[in-house]
């Protein structure tokens, strides 16, 4: 099932096989397959209308798939109520009852998961502390800022101690401090608690920062999946390296570099003698790029004063994937 990295003998936390979904006969998702291992953070990326929210709603049992199979936390998708015992979900644009306090809201949701009144109150208090809302437990939700609402939503997700967490655009509309807070919380619940997290986001920097793997959806299909580095490399645009040579050897160095396989072009900086920019194609492995450039120059007796390889950029890969499909 799926195409993710599989550890022998371990049941993936999420298994998706050929899942499709149509609304009024219009396909929204087609043949989506992937696995997520326990403890991984999977980023689900894609442009608007790619099917990210629909995929999350299928996996969280809000929608039934039109085709295919899935399992979450080892529970078959045909047993939705059982799945809901093991998941925590922060939907996109979740609403909150403004007339309740944060503490009341969490206590209620804890009780929906079967806790007694006292246990629920205790769990609500502890969970609000985790998201740094402990001092606002008694305040009406109507008085919360957007960032606080999002943290309250994450607290609700965590109140049932879920095995698999689904977060749909958790940093949408947050200021930098709010975004940082949410990302730190996600990182903590993944690293410290070992929960599996599926995170849908438009913010590629968020995915680069916290996701162990990513899945790129485009027009309802899986356009790419793998680690951020793998996808960036496989689909990325050209990669750049900045290089500094002795000015008198710059011309010979340029001639040598343009002859190397994988180097697309070399350009010299007009205002800094000896400074070169080397452009590799997106498929070039970073270790090979370093060996290729530095090794070849040193072998030819050309001194290398500095060498810096840019990281492969997910944004370039994302644009390459989604624009190629759009053409």
């Amino acid at each position: 099932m799926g195409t993710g990295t599989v550890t022998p003998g371990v049941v993936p936390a999420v298994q998706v096989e050929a899942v499709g979904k149509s609304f009024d006969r219009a396909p929204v998702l087609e043949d989506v397959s992937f696995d997520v291992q326990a403890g991984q953070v999977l980023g689900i990326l894609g442009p608007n209308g790619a099917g990210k929210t629909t995929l999350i709603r299928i996996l969280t049992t809000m929608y039934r798939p039109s085709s295919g199979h899935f399992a979450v936390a080892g529970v078959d998708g045909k047993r939705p109520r059982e799945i809901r015992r093991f998941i925590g979900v922060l939907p996109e644009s979740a609403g909150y009852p403004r007339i309740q306090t944060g503490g009341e809201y969490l206590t209620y949701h804890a009780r929906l998961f079967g806790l007694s009144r006292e246990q629920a109150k205790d769990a609500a208090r502890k969970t609000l502390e985790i998201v740094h809302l402990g001092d606002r437990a008694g305040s009406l939700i109507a008085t919360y800022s957007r960032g606080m609402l999002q943290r309250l939503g994450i607290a609700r997700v965590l109140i049932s101690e879920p095995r698999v967490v689904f977060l749909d655009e958790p940093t949408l509309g947050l200021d930098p401090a709010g975004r940082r807070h949410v990302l730190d919380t996600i990182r903590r619940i993944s690293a410290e608690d070992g929960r599996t997290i599926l995170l849908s986001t438009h913010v590629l920097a968020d995915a680069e920062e916290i996701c162990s793997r990513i899945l790129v959806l485009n027009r309802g299909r899986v356009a790419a999946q793998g680690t951020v580095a793998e996808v960036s490399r496989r689909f990325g645009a050209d990669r750049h390296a900045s290089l500094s040579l002795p000015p008198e050897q710059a011309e010979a160095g340029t001639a040598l570099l343009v002859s190397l396989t994988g180097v697309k072009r070399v350009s010299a900086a007009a205002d800094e003698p000896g400074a070169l920019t080397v452009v590799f194609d997106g498929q070039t492995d970073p270790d090979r790029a370093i060996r290729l450039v530095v090794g070849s120059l040193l072998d030819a007796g050309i001194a290398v004063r500095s060498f810096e390889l840019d990281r492969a950029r997910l944004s370039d890969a994302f644009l390459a994937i989604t624009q190629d499909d759009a053409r």
Partner: protein
Amino acid sequence: MTAIAAPARSPAGWSVVAGRELRDLWAGGRALTLSTVYSLFLSIVVYLLASSTNLNFLEQRESVTLTAQLAIAVGALLAMILAADAISGERERSTLEATLLSPVSRRALVLGKLVAAFSIWVAAWVIVIPYIWFLGRGVDIVWEAIACTFVVGTLLAAGLMAFAMLVSIAVDSNRASLSVSLLVLLALLAPTQLPSSAQSGWAGESLYRLNPVTAGEHYVGKLLTNGHDWTQDLDWLVSPAIAAVALLVLTAVMASSLTLTGWRER
């Protein structure tokens, strides 16, 4: 984070939902506002019945009957409004998804919301008791009026509430849910405004009996105005009872297919 220990005894899902809904309805002020408006309405009606020169030609028994019938109609209407808002309103406020994501069954969720909506009918019945007592003093029908208001009102409130809940489950717009529910209630109440000649004859009486609202109100009239025995006109309660049971059963069946977006996924 530490794992939460499983409770020794899990609370029933419907009672958790009902408790929360009751607090939101009453402590949040919505049910209190509706009850206050209802009380004002009853006060005006009773004042007119007791003092107006145009209306006080009514016999005391008829005044009690009219008050009981109005209390039943308006109390059931209030319960219907709350039920119509219960699901579609949460859809509009985007609060439904978080509840649906819990392991509580859809049926328990709907039952909890029905219990909360029903509370306003109970309040409406309690509120009308002093008005009935005031108007019915001296004609010895006070307890009869209070009891029959409760029985008939409960049947009609349950049926109308269940119908409104069905609509609320099916549509994703709160406005549509309220409009359809109110339209149906008005259609059921319309025959009470027809001349009595329209209610005579086989066809007229059959329609009157089949319509749970008119049948229930007719039973109240026979019992309180005409002084009939409790059991004498029980056949008029068949339609309200069947409607209440059938609609509640249908709601329980349809509740299991409650979805995030109404009768069709979008």
